[in-house]
Each structure stands twice: as structure tokens, then as C-alpha cells.
């Protein structure tokens, strides 16, 4: 029970493509851990497996001590997640979204109300709690998703590119609340981001992932050679060619819808 995350030979194959390749990873309790890698490197697939959304092809993993295949329900109770793509109900208010979340995680009455209030205050959305989410800006939606991921006080919090497309002010605020959660409630945080300097500043350790394998893992300061930035380390290890990520019809559709809503 020492580790928040412990994977052994964790593998996910889609036909001929190996998205996650015999991955061994250990993340200690209370760490802020960054998963870095180019598009299609397998970060989201890895997180999906750790969140019980995807069955591994082979290998196994434990999240907060619970097996992701055999103890799915226990794993789900112990984690919070902010997905890469939006996952709010636009037709409901912020409060209603969190209310549904609270009930799904077994919270009731005053405890639930307090948790919703606290979560909304943490991301400074309490004043807008009764507005429909579809009237929120992109940054506000993101903050609301983070509030939702935190509100049931998970032991492990997954953040899959939580700051993508946000302005520096909003990014700063989001990272501040993540740090606060980590410090005050000892929440283990596993995040992915393409803003390498943010990962450098925030994470105790990072893993650079490419083609489903970990190519480097450790404290950012230890990965850097003399005078190098973490981004240079990243490029040195993963090359500078641009990756294509396969998108299903769902993703293209969603992108189209997003374009509409603008």
C-alpha cells in the first residue's frame, strides 16, 4: 500500500498497434507526477486503464492498492479524473452537475452540499453556481471539471491536459488549486500536459512516454543535462517529427460541435 500507482507489464493493444507497451511505473503517495509525451504516445490510454475505463490487454496495475481489473468499484471510489475532452452536462447548471457527481459518489445531504460549495469556491465559481454550463467560457468549464474531480476528496487525481487552450491567468489558477489540494489533503496527482515548463515547475517527477514506453523517468532536474530546459530534454528523447493521432468519428464530431458553439 505504499504506492498510489503501481503498474506491472501494463499493455494495451489495438490490433497491430501497441498503445501502451509493457509499462512498469510506480508513483508514491502524495507525489505530483507528470506524464509527458507527444500526441499518440499512449498517455491517455494509460490513464484510461488506470481509471478502469479500458481493460488492459495484458499486465496489471494497482491504484491506491486496488487492482484495476478485479476491484474496479474500489478503484473508482478512490480516484478523481479531469478528462482531456469536456465531460460536463451543458444543459444543467454548475451546481446540478456537481450534485449529480456527489450522489454518484455516495454523498448526501449536508455533507454533499458543503462539498459542492467548497469545490466551487476553490475554483472561484461559487457566484456562477446557478448558471447553465453552456453559458460558461472554456476556462470556466475547465475549472468546473477540476472542482468536480476534487469534490469527493479522491486519493488519486488524474488530470489529462487540464490546461489545454487556456490563458496563462486561468492556467496559473488551476495549478494553484491543484498544488493546494496536494499539499493540504495529500492527494496524489498524475497529470499530462504539453506545456513542458509547467510540468517542470509543478511536478516532483516526470515520465517521458513515447510509443507506449517510458523513455525517461525522474525529477526534472535530474533529467536535464547542463543548460538544458525540460522541453529540450523532451525533444532530444522523442525526436522532432510531428505525430499523427488517430481520431474516431466521435472526436471529429465533437471538434465540429465545439467549432459550432464558438
Amino acid at each position, binding site marked *: 500500500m505504499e504506492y498510489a500507482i503501481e503498474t506491472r507489464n501494463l499493455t494495451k493493444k489495438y490490433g497491430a498497434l501497441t498503445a501502451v507497451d509493457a509499462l512498469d511505473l510506480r508513483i508514491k503517495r502524495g507525489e505530483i507526477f507528470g506524464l509527458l509525451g507527444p500526441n499518440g504516445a499512449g498517455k491517455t490510454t494509460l490513464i484510461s486503464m488506470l*481509471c*478502469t*475505463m*479500458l*481493460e488492459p490487454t495484458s499486465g496489471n496495475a494497482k491504484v491506491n492498492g486496488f487492482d484495476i481489473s478485479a476491484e474496479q*468499484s*474500489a478503484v*473508482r*471510489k478512490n*480516484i478523481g*479524473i479531469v*478528462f482531456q*475532452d*469536456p*465531460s*460536463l*452536462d*451543458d*444543459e*444543467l447548471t454548475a451546481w*446540478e452537475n456537481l*450534485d*449529480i*457527481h456527489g*450522489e*454518484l*459518489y*455516495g454523498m*448526501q445531504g449536508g455533507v454533499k452540499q458543503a462539498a459542492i460549495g467548497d469545490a466551487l469556491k476553490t475554483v472561484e465559481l461559487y457566484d456562477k453556481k446557478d448558471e*447553465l454550463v453552456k453559458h460558461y467560457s472554456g476556462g470556466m468549464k475547465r475549472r468546473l471539471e477540476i472542482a*468536480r474531480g476534487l469534490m469527493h476528496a479522491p486519493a488519486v487525481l488524474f488530470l489529462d491536459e487540464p490546461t489545454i487552450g487556456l490563458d496563462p491567468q486561468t492556467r496559473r489558477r488551476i495549478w494553484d488549486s491543484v498544488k493546494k489540494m496536494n499539499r493540504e489533503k495529500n492527494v496524489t496527482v498524475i497529470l499530462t500536459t504539453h506545456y513542458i515548463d509547467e510540468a517542470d515547475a509543478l511536478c516532483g517527477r516526470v515520465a517521458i512516454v513515447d510509443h507506449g514506453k517510458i523513455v525517461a523517468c525522474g525529477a526534472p532536474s535530474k533529467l536535464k543535462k547542463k543548460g538544458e530546459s525540460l522541453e529540450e530534454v523532451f525533444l532530444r528523447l522523442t525526436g522532432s517529427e510531428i505525430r499523427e493521432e488517430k481520431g*474516431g*468519428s*466521435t472526436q471529429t*464530431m*465533437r471538434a465540429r*460541435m465545439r467549432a459550432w458553439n464558438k
Partner: protein
Amino acid sequence: MNEFTAIKVLWKRELLRFVRAKSRIAGSLGMPLFFLLFLGTGLNSAFSGTTGNYMEFIAPGIIGMVLMFSSVANGLIVIMDRQFGFLKEILVAPVSRLSIVAGKIFGGATTSIFQAAIIMALMPFLGVSFNLSGMLAAFVFMVLISIAFVGLGIAIASKMEDMHGFQLVMNFLVMPLFFLSGALFPITNLPEWLKILTLIDPLTYGIDGMRGALTGSSAMPFWVDFGVLALFCTAMFALGAWLFTKKSTGN
């Protein structure tokens, strides 16, 4: 215990979304009202010499139509939840897939019945009125029809990638089911081939049951209508639950 809460909260969500979308309610009531008002009145006067009232005859058929269309349309909500991502939020929560489907089916059935009830409440203004005990008996059929077709809608949605395919289903499955159900004409004196098709159509039994309850005349006995529909309802609930679960766990 948490499973029951999950069913309740997802049921509540469907209701909340339903009352928010006022234009959708108005839109869904348009077609059945036109059917009643124009087709009903038109054919009523065309057959004015014969026995019986055509308006009264199609009224249960129109209720069945509202129930089936609005119920199957719940599949669209499932597809939208998947496309806009909310489904992931539910799937990663510590509740079983079965509770999620149950909550969705009960929520969808409730909103369908509510829409049918609005149509029923408007019927007296078109000269069709039913007694209370008949309406209570018809309610049993309304519940079965709506649960069955929400289940079917979710089953279909679990097999679809996006919304475009769903429109195809509405045209090639739901429309024929409606026309073959005896909603608009009696099924007793049909040519053999058409009669067989109507007897295969599960909606036939729902509409016949409602017609028996509301107007006192039906083509088949109550227990046949009820039995076939109850069986179909159970089967569709199971199919919806099975395909939804399969879609959200099998990758």
C-alpha cells in the same frame, strides 16, 4: 444502496433536461396534434356514414405514437452524452452499468409518458374524452410501451457511432412500426400478408390494449395484449442493458 441513488439521480437528470428543453416539448407535440386534428377530422367526415367515431379510434394510436417516438429518441441522448463526453463522467463513477441503464430507461420512460399525458389532456378539446378507470388501465400499457422503446432506443444507440445513423433508424424502423401497429386502421379485416406484419409488430399489442382500456373495443383480449407487451418490454430492457454495458466496457 448507492446503486439505488444512482438510478434516482440519473432519472432526475433526464427530467431536469426535459423541463429545460421547452422547445423540444413543443416540437414533439406538434406532429401527433396535427395527426389528430387534420387526419382525424378529415377521415372522420369521410366515413361519417359508418358506425363508430374515427377520431376516437385513432386517439389511442396517437398516444402510442407519442410514446414510441419520444421513447426511441432517448437513444439520441445516449449518443449525445457519448459525443459531448458526459457519459464518461457517469461511467467512471463507482456505480454499476446496470444502474446507469436503469436510470436512463426510467427517466426516458417518465418523460415519454409525460408527453403522452399532455396529448391526452388536450384530447377532450377535440371531442374525445375517456373515463378515469379506462385511463388508469391504459396507463399500465403506456408504462410498458415507453420502457420497451427506451430500451430499444438505447440498444440501437449502443450500436451507432453518431447521430446520422439514428435518423435512418427512425425512418426505417420506427415509422413502419407505427404504420403497422393498427394505430390508424383496424387490424381485423386486413389482407393476410399485412395482418401477419401487424401481428409481428409489438406496438400493435400496446395500442390494442390501450384502445380496449379507453374505448372498450379491442381486436385481442386484454391478457394477450398485456402478455405480449410485457414480454417485449422485458426483452428490450435486457437488450438495452446488455448492449449498453457491452459498448461501455468492451473496447
